């Protein structure tokens, strides 16, 4: 019995170890590559860890603009686009979700259906007209066109998720707020939103990750460092004939940091939000 138990324990740990190695090894490998010189990366014999780890690749990411044209600009673009998109999605999302969760109005059910329906629309099909629209009004390759497009893609999902968070706020709290003389906006901003902070965090992280990681939209809508985002820049770099691998991986690691930091920082809300809908249904 005890022997059997120990065996099971060891087997479980071995499996856990295998899963973790599979998860983390690829990530560790680009970290190692990013602190190696190109001589070490391309030289033989193969080395598992650089003899003299160096941060020169990271320094080059931020200073050497000839080799990695406009990468810093693209990072800044990503930061601006993702921040604005997240903020607007949270604001409009909270307002819209409140309307759906609490108010009775004409066409309410149709609106909800429309919100669901938007999730089925194929991205490439609508990006063609969006491209044509922005081309016609001369707004291609601008951050604002990218931001607006991303918001319209992400917002329906945010409203849908936030609505379910607002449902869990007891209606009595709101009624109490009305009696205390708060108007509808007051009740929304002072009572409902503060209670729903976990939900706001979770949806905010979703919006940020969606925007930061989005590749197809900026690939179609942007072309120069004026609006091009990080994934597009990495892809261009990746497609070159001769690649500076140390520099590439360092650039990649820098581009990975924001999503990793944010998802680890908010992981409690994220995992709850991620799983809430799927497990209960």
């Amino acid at each position: 019995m005890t022997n059997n138990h120990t065996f099971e324990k060891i087997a479980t740990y071995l499996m856990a170890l295998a899963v973790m190695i599979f998860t983390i090894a690829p990530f560790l490998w680009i970290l190692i590559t990013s602190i190696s010189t190109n001589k070490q990366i391309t030289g033989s014999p193969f080395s598992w860890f650089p003899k003299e780890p160096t941060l020169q690749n990271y320094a080059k990411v931020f200073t050497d603009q000839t080799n990695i044209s406009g990468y810093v600009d693209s990072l800044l673009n990503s930061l601006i686009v993702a921040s604005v998109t997240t903020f607007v999605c949270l604001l409009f999302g909270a307002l819209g979700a409140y309307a759906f969760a609490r108010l009775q109005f004409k066409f309410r059910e149709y609106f909800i259906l429309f919100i669901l329906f938007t999730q089925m629309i194929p991205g490439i099909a609508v990006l063609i007209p969006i491209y044509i629209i922005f081309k016609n009004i001369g707004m291609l390759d601008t951050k604002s066109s990218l931001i607006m497009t991303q918001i319209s893609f992400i917002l329906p999902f945010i409203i849908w998720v936030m609505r379910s968070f607002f449902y869990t706020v007891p209606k009595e709290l709101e009624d109490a707020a009305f009696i205390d003389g708060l108007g509808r906006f007051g009740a929304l901003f002072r009572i409902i939103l503060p209670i729903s902070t976990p939900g706001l965090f979770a949806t905010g992280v979703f919006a940020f990750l969606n925007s930061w990681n989005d590749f197809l939209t900026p690939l179609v809508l942007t072309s120069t460092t004026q609006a091009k985002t990080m994934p597009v820049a990495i892809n261009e770099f990746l497609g070159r004939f001769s690649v500076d691998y140390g520099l590439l991986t360092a650039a990649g690691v820098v581009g990975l940091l924001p999503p990793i930091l944010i998802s680890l920082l908010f992981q409690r809300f994220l995992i709850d939000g991620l799983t809430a809908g799927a497990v209960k249904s």
Partner: protein
Amino acid sequence: MRTTKMVSEGKFALLLLLPTIVLLAGLLLYPFIYSIYLCFVNLNLTKPWLGTQFVGLANFTTTLMDPEFWSSLKITALFSGFSVAGSLAIGLIAALVLNQKLMFRGLFRSLLLIPWAIPLVIVGMIWKLILHPNYGVLNALLMQTGIIHKNIAWLTEPGWSFFMLILSELWRSFPFVALLYLAALQTIPKDLYEAAKVDGAGTLHNFRHITLPFLQPATLVLLVLRTIDAFRAFDLIFALTKGGPANKTEIVGLYLYKQGFMFTKFGESAAGSYLVTLLILLLVFVYVKLFKLKDIQ
């Protein structure tokens, strides 16, 4: 008193939804209708003097008669099959393991977030590097352990490229499955297992009769989400192989992108997108029916 002081619900709702309505009308509803229109016309962008022509169902028939469309659809089906089945299997195993009382369980769970949270283009970059024919770590590992004696060009050899694509896709997609299953596992009441233990039931019996039924709702959700994901895959393949070698990894998302934005065949690209959407809807419908059928039995 309340009614006189506050705006009516309908007006307030309109006020709250106004920004959303304006944005979605302009950048989702209008493009959607426009894209439906595009399915039935030829814009003649290369011959502007011809103007826009109504072509009926020609965009659909051209797409349906294009062998490249069918081969990309076949690759997409294979890709989705392996990706969905593989990610659900690995995800379930990972969740079952992490549901045990382990040291560092919290850390393990956090690490799972990394592949899920990062841009797919960078996932592509990571695997392109690992699979590099000359400097890649996979070749080095296999050479040093004596499993292979010559470097393999994983991404450019037709026999390997598809499987390497699946490998990197699984790395990316299994953590999400694991996290969802883990949450579902934690909803199973512990006393069910204890009662079964008293009855002398074995681990396998418990898994089939307690664990699996509890995981069913999560499984349906995962099947639907992962299938939609896999059928719409684009970024990873674009970064990793661009469809090569010899279109061996050209999934339908890539095909439609090329049609639309490289060959400016907007009509055919839009028509193809809707055909694929129809296919996804059909699959989701089948999943839901299958799961309902199981419930009745």
